[in-house]
């Protein structure tokens, strides 16, 4: 491959959009062409400047209020008037729900394949909740590299998290924190993908219905990708698309492509 062929592919190379052989060809060219290698570094620098320093304008609160008033969501879109609570039809529903909890919940806990939360997407739902909580609080330790973050977990967890990926230009590691994942502590690491944050939670998988192979689930507009390595469960969660999550999972050693998505 010569410079004329390599230059137009540099962005695709950085974004992981090339086929395996193409990627290898560009990589080999960059190894021995200083000019293209500098160009590749410059393109990365431009991407980083755009992602980190271009101001992001949030919609003003007044605009959001006007939009919400003009386009009420599904919960408030019903034209039904408020009625006294005793005239509602919810009493039979409540009774049925209580009966369901009394009769069915203990069985759900015992059912294989449903996990203790009694639902097959319990890991995904918890991951989304924890991701939002983590974004709100921020990381506890800023990343100076994986060798700074990993030792920080020592003494804070009852297991040693195995994290095979230290971050790179496409998925820089921002930092880490300890979070509760359902009933146990988890190592939480935050990577970045362009303007978006991706949380990785690593926890003991024992007793949870943690998918064995990479399994993609979408919940509330977020994508999750969960897999298991021995006793440890891993789950990625973000608003980036599933392809980006699969790329990060591959770097983390999840192996294989993401499984079929559930919606």
């Amino acid at each position, binding site marked *: 491959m010569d410079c004329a062929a390599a230059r137009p592919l540099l962005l695709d190379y950085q974004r992981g959009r090339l086929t395996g052989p193409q990627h290898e060809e560009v990589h080999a060219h960059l190894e021995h062409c200083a000019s293209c290698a500098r160009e590749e570094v*410059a393109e990365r*620098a431009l991407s980083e400047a755009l992602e980190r*320093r271009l101001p992001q304008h*949030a*919609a003003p609160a007044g*605009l959001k209020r006007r*939009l919400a008033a003009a*386009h009420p969501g599904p919960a408030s879109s019903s034209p039904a008037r408020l009625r006294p609570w005793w005239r509602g039809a919810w009493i039979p529903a409540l009774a049925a729900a209580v009966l369901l909890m009394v009769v069915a919940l203990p069985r759900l806990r015992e059912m294989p394949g449903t996990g203790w939360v009694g639902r097959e997407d319990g890991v995904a739902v918890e991951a989304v909740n924890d991701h939002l909580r983590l974004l709100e609080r921020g990381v506890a330790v800023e990343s100076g590299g994986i060798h700074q973050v990993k030792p920080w977990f020592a003494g804070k967890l009852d297991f040693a998290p195995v994290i095979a990926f230290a971050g790179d230009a496409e998925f820089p590691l921002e930092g880490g924190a300890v979070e509760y994942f359902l009933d146990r502590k988890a190592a939480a690491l935050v990577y970045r993908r362009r303007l978006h944050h991706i949380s990785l939670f690593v926890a003991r998988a024992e007793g949870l219905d943690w998918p064995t192979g990479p399994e993609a689930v979408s919940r509330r*507009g977020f994508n999750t990708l969960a897999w298991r390595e021995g006793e440890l469960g891993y789950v990625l969660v973000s608003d*980036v698309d599933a392809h980006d999550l699969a790329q990060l999972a591959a770097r983390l050693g999840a192996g294989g492509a993401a499984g079929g998505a559930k919606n």
Partner: protein
Amino acid sequence: MGGDGRTSGRAEIAAHALAYADTLYNLARYLTGGAADAEDLVQETYARAFGAADQYTPGTNLKAWLFRILRNAFLSQYRRQRGNPVVGALDTVDPRVADTPATEWLRDDLELDRLRKVVAGEIEQALLTLTEEGRTVILLDLEGLSEREMAEVMGCAVGTVKSRLARARAALRQRLQDYAR
């Protein structure tokens, strides 16, 4: 699309569309160049989106669908107001800048260092000098849309997206070079 699809498409828009207000507003700010115009454009976008909810295919990329509506709304408004010098000036700029091929200046380490230290105001100003197509493709790429999704938003072929993105990035680098002098 069947009746169920229409129902679930409308429900999906009702449930999730407002979550994209920030990201739509950000694109609108960079397209219009002003806060008031951006607010108008976002409101127009949502009005069109809810009005055309039956055309949305459930399960597809809602954000990309909203981006397409926003851009079309901007362009139709722009065409209507083409005589308006303010709007006309927004659809920048010197095409010689936009079409500048990949520049050589960054091969100098000092210039690369300069790019690494560029400040927010400079890169924002540089972006605002690009053509509407250039600004849009840069921002959609930043939002993480795939090339196919960007092509759908911009109503062009994937190959056109590639070339527009390459030209826009080259123009940005050229503009940042100008600031460094």
